[in-house]
């Protein structure tokens, strides 16, 4: 099987279309960043409190919102997390509710509010243990205090109850996905005496906090700075490497292309009003590397072809090089795209932003090495020629391999 056999497309002839295409996308992204959605920062960059809650029954977001309002939290953001059948909700508080002197306060309030308002059983069960939110330590301690197996005199109580607690919570977290729907689900997981004790002394609140992120303003600011620096350093690192391996103009063209990809990807996030998080930055840096790969493959071929045919004009050499590598470029991008798509579809909510960035970035990155980087080389050459400078083709240094 073979696609793209003997392609002969005049890529450079279409440079104005490419320019228009790139402009439309990057400008609309920039406009969205400046005037519409802006860049929506994730909690790691802006600081704040984010609590992830799993509910036993399908959660009613309005009801949670009202409960939060009543508790005096008015600027909370409450949204469904993951797919509807996962019954998960992310509740976030803005930065100003998250002070470093009492970092935990926001989370505590959310928990208290949920406990008081959401679970019908919570308020009705004073002094009982909430098995949906119990930690291993607190469950073991509870069992030790009540000692259903009458072991305290034997000295093995601590170890025994710790084991039982671990088994129960392992069942809750690994088998049941974090939440009990009935205390009968305890049957057979722990010793009968322990199960009976819990059926009497524990209750199910109907929600389970499965993750929480609380980030103070200091850390947020530091991470913001770091992410920006990492992106810039990474671009600079590539520029230097390409300068060393090829010519400065190759490096500049590649970096411009990669910057173009980054801009469009970030713009896509802004257009979709999707949050930029630390992992999205990781994806962006990967894209920088990936898009650079594509560009280098084309550049390598240009360099090789220039060395072989010094008479031919640059535009046709570049065209030929793109055509020769087109098969590889499309195949590789297609395959990587396939894996990234699998990540986007199956990777779940945690990786959603990350894989979205890669999905967009790989498409744009492939496009840019053909439509941005290569034409730039030719445009630079023509500009030099116009200024009456030596019209020498940038043959590049010899490969130092």
């Amino acid at each position: 099987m073979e696609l793209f056999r003997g392609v002969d497309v005049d890529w450079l002839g279409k440079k104005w279309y490419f320019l228009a295409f790139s402009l439309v996308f990057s400008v609309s992204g920039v406009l969205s960043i400046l005037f519409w959605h802006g860049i929506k920062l994730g909690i790691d960059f802006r600081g704040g409190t984010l609590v992830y809650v799993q509910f036993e029954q399908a959660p009613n977001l309005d009801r949670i919102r009202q409960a939060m309002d009543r508790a005096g939290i008015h600027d909370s953001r409450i949204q469904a997390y993951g797919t509807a059948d996962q019954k998960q909700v992310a509740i976030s508080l803005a930065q100003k509710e998250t002070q470093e002197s009492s970092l935990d306060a926001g989370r505590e309030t959310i928990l208290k509010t949920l406990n008081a308002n959401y679970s019908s059983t919570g308020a009705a069960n004073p002094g009982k243990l909430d098995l949906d939110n119990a930690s291993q330590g607190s469950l073991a301690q509870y069992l030790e205090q009540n000692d259903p197996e009458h072991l305290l005199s034997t000295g093995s109580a601590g170890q025994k109850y710790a084991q039982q607690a671990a088994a129960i919570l392992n069942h809750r977290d690994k088998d049941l996905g974090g939440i009990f729907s009935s205390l009968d689900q305890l049957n057979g997981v722990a010793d009968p005496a322990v199960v009976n004790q819990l059926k009497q002394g524990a209750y199910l609140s109907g929600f389970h906090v499965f993750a929480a992120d609380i980030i103070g303003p200091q850390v947020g600011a530091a991470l913001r700075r770091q992410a920006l620096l990492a992106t810039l350093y990474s671009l600079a690192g590539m520029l230097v490497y390409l300068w060393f391996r090829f010519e400065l103009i190759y490096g500049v063209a590649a970096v411009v292309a990669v910057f173009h990809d980054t801009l469009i990807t970030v713009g896509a996030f802004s257009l979709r009003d999707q949050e930029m998080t630390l992992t999205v930055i990781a994806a962006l840096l990967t894209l920088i590397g990936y898009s650079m790969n594509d560009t280098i493959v084309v550049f390598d071929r240009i360099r090789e072809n220039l060395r072989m045919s010094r008479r031919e004009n640059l535009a046709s050499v570049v065209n030929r090089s793109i055509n020769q590598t087109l098969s590889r470029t499309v195949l590789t991008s297609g395959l990587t795209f396939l894996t990234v798509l699998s990540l986007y579809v199956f990777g779940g909510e945690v990786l959603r932003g990350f894989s979205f960035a890669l999905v967009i970035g790989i498409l744009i990155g492939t496009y840019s090495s053909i439509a941005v980087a290569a034409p730039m080389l030719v445009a630079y050459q023509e500009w030099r020629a116009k200024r009456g400078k030596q019209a020498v083709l940038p043959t590049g240094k010899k490969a130092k391999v």
Partner: protein
Amino acid sequence: MRKTILIIAVLLVFVFGIFRIPKGIGLSAWKTALTDNIHLGLDLKGGIHLVLQVMVQEAVGAETDNAVARIQADLQQSGISARVFKPDTKKPEVIQIQGTPADRGADVRSLLDSRYGAQYLISSEPNNNWILTMKGTEVQAIEQRAVQQSIDTIGTRINDLGVTEPTIQEYNLGTNQILVELPGVDDLSRVRDIIQSTARLEIHLVVGGPFPSEQAAMQSVGGTVPPEDEVMAYGGNEPELFGQYYVLQRLPVVAGDDFRDAQPSVDENGRPDATFILTRNAGDRFYQFTSANIGKSLAVVLDNRVQEAANIQQAIRDQGRITGLSKEKAENLSLMLRTGALPASIHYLQESVVGPSLGADSIRRGVLASIVGMLAVMIFMLVYYHGAGINADLALILNLIILLGFMGYSKAVLTLPGIAGVILTIGMGVDSNVLIFERIREELRAGKAPAAAVEQGFAHAWTTILDTHVTTIVSAIILFLFGTGPVKGFAITLSFGLFANLFTAVFVSRHIFDSILKRKQRGEALSIG
């Protein structure tokens, strides 16, 4: 042949890295072996991630508090009476001496210079005042020590919790910050209790009290609290003393690192308490102090609250007991005293908790995404390149084994973005193969014989492959240097994957081609789609 052996050896070495020696031959034994050797990050395993700020200026303050006491004693010994105090609570590094006799200026100067000149800048001010300011280098050294000591102390406390493989280290995101990562722990409040409680246990001399209000306490010392004293609220559990205040001497008689050991126990009425033993030096000092102050009161102060106050009935040497505690408090306090106090209090900058249910879900999804992605790629390669596709698929599998083996050997942590890194490596791993295969096809098309085409294909593709790998590794290294936690995990798998890929795509794949070619008849076509 030697190359085949080399490849098989590499394969075995890395398979060993992934599984070591499983404790059985069943599927579950292999699964356990796998999870034992590949270290999962917090986001997959569940756990707690904390960033703490050490309030280092408190350590500086404690050091100057000490100096105040020493200067006072030194001046007294030389027969100079003066008031030594810290004029500004916001500047813990400054000490002031007030009212030295006018005719003893030279003596004061020489005493301060000889004893304190190394640590402090000393200046004489008008009206027989002296100002000692701690030198910048000294402040820095104390701050650095405070951070290190906090790391050690938190480490010992966490060890007591029995967490496997905790991370407690200086955090380079800001200054004087500590990163704490506790895999498999989900009990944030207990961890907070154990870490945060500076459990600064001190014993102070009582100047007056208890008073019913803060004002009353201030009134008793003439309206304003002199720098040598302080007002402190009661924090024990005697109901009749709730809301009362004491005036205490500011400098403690016994403090932080004077405690050698402590154990929770119960008194004769079965109420929980904590018994402590002082170090030898502190014991001697305490003995002298208590013998000189029989009849006066001592206050046991826990985290800036008076826990209890009692008369000194006889000289005490090195053992004592703190009553009025709950069982849990007695246990925690004993742990704190045993492990040593934190040199300064701690602020939380970041707290992240990942529950085990989220981690388990993430693993499931990550693995599913990897398998689907990998199968899609492998099937495509077979369809598109026929025989050579097998070649690429073998290289891909070997790449995965090497990557996971690396993870097993290096104890690097696999995070969810790390799994994404694995998937991405699969995608990029075939890139090298595609480059080479396309090149070989081109050479074949140009009329070269299979052997020559393979030779040329690899030679030409190699330059490109090297360049692409180096640039990606550049971004991976930068990610590693800048990233934290999960992102770091991504950078690690990505770089390992790239290195493994250089080996599999270039060396292994080439070797398979060569051995196929060797068996073929001259002129027989190469199966490359």
